[in-house]
């Protein structure tokens, strides 16, 4: 199934990716091809089959409500930020 250019634009918008027109066309073709494989998958009968979204049989994995120490604290983390002010990451304001 072919994917249209508007769809690529929508996907790019949703995933916050600026694309050049060359990229749009390239990805449109590649995604259309991938989508055809998905069509192939849909020829299989999966009636009554539950999806697996995680393997293994773990359940109820949790920890006690106790404060623990982490190897990186505020200053270590903020040191990675492109711009900070007043111990906070600084970003352009959303309109």
């Amino acid at each position, binding site marked *: 199934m072919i*994917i249209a250019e508007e*769809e*690529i634009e929508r*996907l*790019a918008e*949703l*995933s*916050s*990716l*600026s*694309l050049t027109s060359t*990229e749009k066309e390239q*990805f449109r073709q*590649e*995604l259309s091809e*991938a*989508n055809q*494989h*998905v069509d*192939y*998958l*849909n020829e*299989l009968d*999966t009636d009554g*089959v*539950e*999806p*697996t*979204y*995680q*393997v*293994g049989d*773990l359940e109820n*994995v949790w*920890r006690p409500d106790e404060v623990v120490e982490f*190897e*990186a604290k505020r200053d*270590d*983390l903020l*040191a*990675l*930020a*492109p*711009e900070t002010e007043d111990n906070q*990451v600084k*970003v*352009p*304001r*959303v*309109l």
Partner: protein
Amino acid sequence: MKYALDSGIQKKGDKVDAYEVQKTLEGYHAPITATVVKRLEEAGAELAQHAGYEANMVAVEKGMATFALNTDVGGEVMAAAENGLYGLRPSYGAISRYGMIASASSMDAIGVTAKTPEDIREALMLIAGPDGMDSTVFDDLATGAKSGSMRVRELELDEVRVKTAEVAHMVIRAAETASSYYRYDGIRFGHRAKDAKSLKDLYNKSRAEGLTEDSKKWILFGTYVLLGENIERCLIKAQKVRTMIIEALEKEMVTTEVLSGSDLGVIAALAGLPVVITPEGKQYIGKRKSDLALLQFVADMKEAK
């Protein structure tokens, strides 16, 4: 004991070079150390090289490191054979993923490569098991081992089955990778675009400039398969196929402990089963949590030759 570490597995203070997200992580020095690294450090192992997995395998081949750890989402460890090495993609959940840069959360694993299965086993014993930082790690790796001889049977996969597995893997990998990569946004770390005109512009440009073409493809396709109008046909369908593959393998393994074959990396990743490749390129898949027994089996086979 020396080891080589994939760039995608973090050590505090080290940069992330030679990895898919290295450009978007420019200027980033890991603030955390992966559990596997911590445990090896405690065991007295020396980090010989922190690089891309190809370079790491060469290091092992040349004897500069006893084993290498790589990030594995679909059987990348199989490249070991090309370097004349053994490779193990362990059961999902055998080794903590804490500190490893995530792509496909339900399939990511840490692969181990070495000259002998014994070396792999030794490494695995040092790094496996729960650490309180990864909720998907199980604690009974040893109990999966079966003493006594293990049976092996060839798994015949026709083209249809191989393709089915690959497509299912591709769809699930895309969705999960798109999700894992939302955080590469130029806000708190990594590459941030200059001259962004607004917050939205900042996101769009930072990601466009920092992410590789491959990453963008995964992200776009992953977003596609997760859309409300597509998810049933795409992701959920792939997950149902995944179930069928898991059940089919379980059925195949009623009368055997090991399945041999080729192109087993993808189905091992889908089912979370351990898979070993030998320098000759032979691949063996075992039951979940039977990693140690599987390694023993391969070692015994090596002896028998």
